């Protein structure tokens, strides 16, 4: 359950790559040698590792269209565990090499195999693999900060902190923890309170006013085809994020999610490790199962002891009967112009009050836009000619009819070709919706302020919120050939 080495590599689009940080864990390497015996393969020098890894990830020689080692049919990335062929094809294999890439960085580590190498053990038998994945994900979160765009200076300064961070979280190749965002390297010293042991994942205790913040966020995804042969699809998943400022070494908090009386059960619930216990009913509903009506539908109680930093308490998926916005999109090619027609209808169960709502109509594989002549029944249209994109801003509300329309014609007569996309050719095109509705959830799930229980001396202030937002919400042109995947036909 240990790692032999760790690398952080920066990779530019033009093929320039360099190792920004590396750490070899010599004692784990020593164990690897003992365990593997004659089939031991040593970790080569940095430049070799870099080259092999890029080849394996398909990133080497970006200007050559075919390189057998990189592109042949047989070779299939057994991601997440890659093989590095140290002494040429099929010889001296270093495995399992875990690698994840994000933005300009590739994070990689080589896991110790604490099992006989022949026959090769399944990944499922090697705890080091999930440990490595966890550590890499933790380092990734640390290096990129929380969600915002990665800036090279920020990354560089955080890379510089890695040696002292690793001294805490992975001094000798066995990961003990992941770096905590924003926390200082030197752990603050908790004041031991009685016999209660301090959780290792909590670096101190909160002092001051007690506040519990519970935010419920639902995300809806959709693929609408507007064709009889193809069923429209949508799904909803929710996350509950908490920030608890509560005194005590191991305070008890319980958050309860409730559904409306006819609500469909929450499925696929995943919880944060700080949740102390779970009712087996909570875990039974599962999206890959045939739902039966008798399934448990709450209330969903999550007793936990909060860490200091904000965390995702739980997540779920839900099957809702209708999508919040039903759309149709029709394109017709007439001579040198496209006739566009879009209809959007807001479902009556959804509150007509958006934080924002926009429809984007990109056109790929065409010349740049010339004349754009579109009329909308509500909202306004912005044209970004250099991006071949129409942005239809619907604002905060749909009209009373809850239906909006766009009609118009666009010519593509620009001097240069516009953006390309291999999927959206000819009449394969989509409208993508971006919206956010505060204070509702599609599943009907909610966290009642009064249902949040905190077992502590001071009565805390409790803040709850919920909202719905879209992600990958596509409405495909019904006159074109949408890139439907097979699974969608089976359902």
């Amino acid at each position, binding site marked *: *359950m240990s790692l032999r080495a760790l690398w952080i590599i920066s990779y530019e689009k033009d093929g320039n790559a360099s190792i920004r940080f590396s750490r070899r864990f010599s*004692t784990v390497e*020593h*164990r690897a040698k003992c365990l593997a*015996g004659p089939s031991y393969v040593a970790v080569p*020098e940095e430049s070799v590792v870099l080259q092999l890894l890029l080849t394996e990830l*398909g990133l080497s020689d970006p200007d050559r*269209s*075919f390189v057998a080692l990189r*592109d042949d*049919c*047989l070779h*299939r*990335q*057994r991601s*997440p565990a890659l093989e590095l062929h140290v002494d040429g094809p099929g010889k001296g294999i270093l495995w399992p090499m875990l690698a*994840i890439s994000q933005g300009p960085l590739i994070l990689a580590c080589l896991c110790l195999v*604490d*099992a006989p190498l022949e026959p*090769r053990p*399944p*990944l*499922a*038998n090697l*705890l080091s*693999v*999930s440990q490595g994945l*966890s550590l890499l994900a933790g380092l990734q979160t640390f290096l990129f900060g929380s969600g915002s765009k990665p800036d090279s200076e920020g990354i560089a300064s955080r890379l510089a902190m890695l040696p002292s961070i690793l*001294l*805490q979280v992975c*001094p*000798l190749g*066995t990961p003990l923890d*992941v770096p905590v965002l924003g926390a200082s390297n*030197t*752990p603050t*010293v908790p004041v031991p309170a009685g016999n209660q*042991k*301090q*959780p*290792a*994942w909590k670096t101190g205790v909160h002092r001051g006013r007690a506040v519990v913040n519970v935010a419920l966020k639902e995300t809806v995804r959709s693929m609408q085809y507007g064709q009889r042969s193809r069923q429209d699809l949508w*799904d909803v*998943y929710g996350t509950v994020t908490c920030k608890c400022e509560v005194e005590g070494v191991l305070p008890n908090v319980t958050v309860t999610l409730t559904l409306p009386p006819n609500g469909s059960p929450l499925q696929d619930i*995943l*919880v*944060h*490790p700080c*949740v102390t216990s*779970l009712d087996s009913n909570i*875990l*039974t509903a*599962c999206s890959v199962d045939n739902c039966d009506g008798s399934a448990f539908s709450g209330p969903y109680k999550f007793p936990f002891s909060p860490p200091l930093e904000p965390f995702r308490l739980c997540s779920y998926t839900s099957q809702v009967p209708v999508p919040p916005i039903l759309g149709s999109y029709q394109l017709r090619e007439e001579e040198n112009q496209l006739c566009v027609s879009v209809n959007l209808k807001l479902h009556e169960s959804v509150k007509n009050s958006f934080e924002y709502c926009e429809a984007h109509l990109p056109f790929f594989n065409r010349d740049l836009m010339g004349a754009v002549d579109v009329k909308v029944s509500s909202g306004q249209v912005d044209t970004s000619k250099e991006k071949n994109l129409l942005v239809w801003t619907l604002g905060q509300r749909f009209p009373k009819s809850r239906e909006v329309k766009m009609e118009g014609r666009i010519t593509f007569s620009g001097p240069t070709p516009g953006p390309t996309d291999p*999927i959206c*050719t000819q009449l394969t095109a989509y409208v993508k919706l971006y919206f956010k509705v505060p204070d509702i959830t599609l599943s009907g799930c909610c966290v009642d302020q009064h249902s949040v229980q905190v077992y502590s001396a001071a009565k805390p202030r409790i803040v709850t919120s919920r909202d719905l937002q879209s992600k990958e919400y596509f409405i495909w042109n019904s006159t074109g050939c949408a*890139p439907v*995947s*097979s699974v969608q036909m*089976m*359902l």
Partner: protein
Amino acid sequence: MAVNWADRLSAFSLSPTEFLSGTTVDAFLAELLREIRDDRASYAVKVLLLSPLCEYPHLLCPSDSVGEETALELMSVFAQCPPKFVQFRGHVLLALTSVLVCTSCMSSRSPASQDFLDVLLEISQNTVDLHGDGLSHSLRNIACDCLRELESCSPGLLSQHVELLDGLRHRETSHLHQAYAGLYTLVLRNAVYQLTQETGAGGEQLKSLLGGNTVVAWEADRDSILSKDSGVLSSLILGPMGSVPTLQTGPDCKELRSILSSLLEESYLLTPLCQAALLHRLTEVVAMVPGIPPAIFRAQLLRLLGTSKVCLFHTTLLMKCAFTDSLFSAEDELFMLKRLVVLSQHPLLTTADKLFYIDCILHFPENRPISCGDGDEALPVLLTPQLASVLMPTVFNDSATLLTRLNLMSLVYLEEGDDGEGKGPAYLYEHLTALLHIVESRGSRENIVTFFRATFLFLMYFCQIESYSSSLVEKLCELYVHHTHLAPHLISLADYIQDRLSESNWAERLLQAMQRAITEVSLTQLTLPDLHSHLKMLGRVAEEGKIPQQSTLRFLYSIITPSSSTLCMSGDWHLGNRVLAVCRRLLVHPSLDSVLVPLADILQHLTCHHGDIDIQDHARLYYTLLTTLSQEKLAGVLARGATERGRQIKTRSLSCIVAESEGLTRALTIHRTEKAVFSVVVVNSETHQHTHAMSESDLPQNDADNNPDDANIILEAYRGQFNDPDFASEITLSYQLVHTQANDCCFDQLFSIRLHFSLTDDHYEELSDLSIPCLFREGPLPVVKLRLKPRQPFPTTLQASAIFTTQDGLSWHTVLPAICVAFQQVFAPLPAPSAWGRSSKLILFERLWDEICSESGDCAVSLFCCQLEDAALSSLSEKHFLPYLISDLSHKEELKVLFFLPPQSHVLLRIKLEEDAAHFNIATDKWQLLPHINSYLLTITSSQEDAHS
């Protein structure tokens, strides 16, 4: 200073071997340690300085003694460092751990490692935080991890401290309890494992182990047990094939059970990573002690199954693997599988986690596995197509996810027994078409590669379904016609399908369809890149014995004849070569007879009309081969050296190199051999020189020799020769090339060997390279003559290397064993004018002797004595001195020997037998040679003594 070190250390870690080639290991290590001790250096720099010791201790401490010394040094650094430099002290502990483990000081329980262990135990027990600033916490944390790593590397190391560690774990309330718990669990696990290896051990021993009353006999035994059994290092949870050693305790293990319960109860307080490790260790312990029911984990299970953390969920899979139905019912099993499917495509998880979960589905630890878990992918019985359907690939998946899902779904449908009627393969095929569509719409390189890999996977599973396989052939052909640059991908697909599905003829069908598509295309639309791809493809088609080649030949003829193309006129060497590459393959095609005439026409046409002379030459060669050799001989000539797979032509003539662009880099690269392939061995040269000397002494004596008064004239004549700087300035040594042991048959025949020599000192002039045409393992040994031109006639060592070509056309570089040039090899006979007889040489000898004895400067005289009989001396002289003998051998009273050492040194010997010893009077005009002469005489006389005694 700091900058300097940062640069140097990064250079070191970039390539330690290269860095160390610029200095020595000892020097670098000493430098590091000195700087670490230096008070002026900042602690930030010192932390950096420790990193080579942490990461590459085996390089810096090549032996246990160096490791031990380094450790002692670091221990004193640690002791002297003020406590406030926690980071530095922590790194010193890590460096110490690394050095002691990697040099095996720890496993041999060296004194330094014992001291270090004491220091660590002391730190870990020191719960007093003097400064209240958490510094000691931090150090204790590191010390605990060092102890944990030491116990991991030398299992059983801490087994007598079980009770101590348990106490520490219990008492600690700060977050350090995690470190103690992790350490304690590992020690416990190793100690229990040790008990399982002892015959007759049981509940009593377990109880005393936990109570800290370790049996004394244990201690002595320990090393031997552990060194025998590396199994203690590896995980005990290995699936259905793994067997776990067990400890028979009976049902009553109260102590262990209560310890396990308390550890499990507090496991919640550990970070997910530590929790997972702890649970894994405890799973191993419970698996080893059947007296503890696996149900002890039950209270934790729901929490773990519901977790969002990959490492925690993983532990439930490991428990399932270890305990199967003694912890998980059939219902639980189905639940876990569904959970895995959910996790494999959960929108909130990372791609890497999801791929890991898919892998876990393919290696799901079933309660009652059907296959015996041989590491191959196998679907769990409970995974129905219905359940798996959410894992259907989509065009929006990234490449790795797409291929992994495709693989899984193919297995699902194959299991289902879909034979073409079912919907499953149809869905997958539709998906493939969607990918094809993306490739047609100018998809990225990644899209293309993914499509071909997906196609390969699909064919591997469903090639037998006729409708899909033939439709794929059609679609790929169409794809190729519009995107000819995909030729290498298509060829790779055909190659691998042929290789992996040898019973299927799909690849052949694809290639034949390609041939048809290419040869039917109108030439007027052909662009140059198209033509290159077409020829590459036709070359591959020509390797298929069952595909008729007439249409290929028609196509070739039409593109080289001027009426339709300007190829011949342009004299494009690359294109010409591509055409030739196709022809070459046609020459060995089984149906050569039927295409002989058109092929000959093409070759003749190229010979006469192609604009490039090289192409003409090659075409002429092929034409000659075709028209003069029988088919069998032709095949023999051209197919020789083909690999076993029969596809790749191994012999790389230049035309083939260019025809196979993939092989090009390999052929143009100089490869390195792992070991020396041959060595340069000295030829026993004495016989050669012997005859030379004899013939000279047989010369008729010149009258002038009888004039003793002309001694000065003789000396001057002799000296005069040296006015020519090249006179007698070289020695020629003969060597043979000899294969080293029979390691690799691919080195049996070596060609175009070029030997390169480099000097290790400046006593000789640089040597030029030597060429040897060939060296065969069974053939005669080629002799090379090495011409050495000494500046100083001292013995030396030459480094030698060679570049050569093997039969398959690859170039290799090999480092040969060093060549030692011994002192006596530098000897040459007196370079007297050829007309001189013995008497002139004797005069010269006497004259030189006198001169040396009278002069000082570089001249010196000496005496060497040894015990030799008369006969022994004679045979010695005959054996070693004959070529250098000035006096007559029969002249027994005094032998006069002169060694000439180029460029201008002389060693003169007068050898006399006195009463009981042989006296070697030595005179030389270069006193620096005396030690060499001495050791030379010592060697030859002692061997003579041995021979006679």
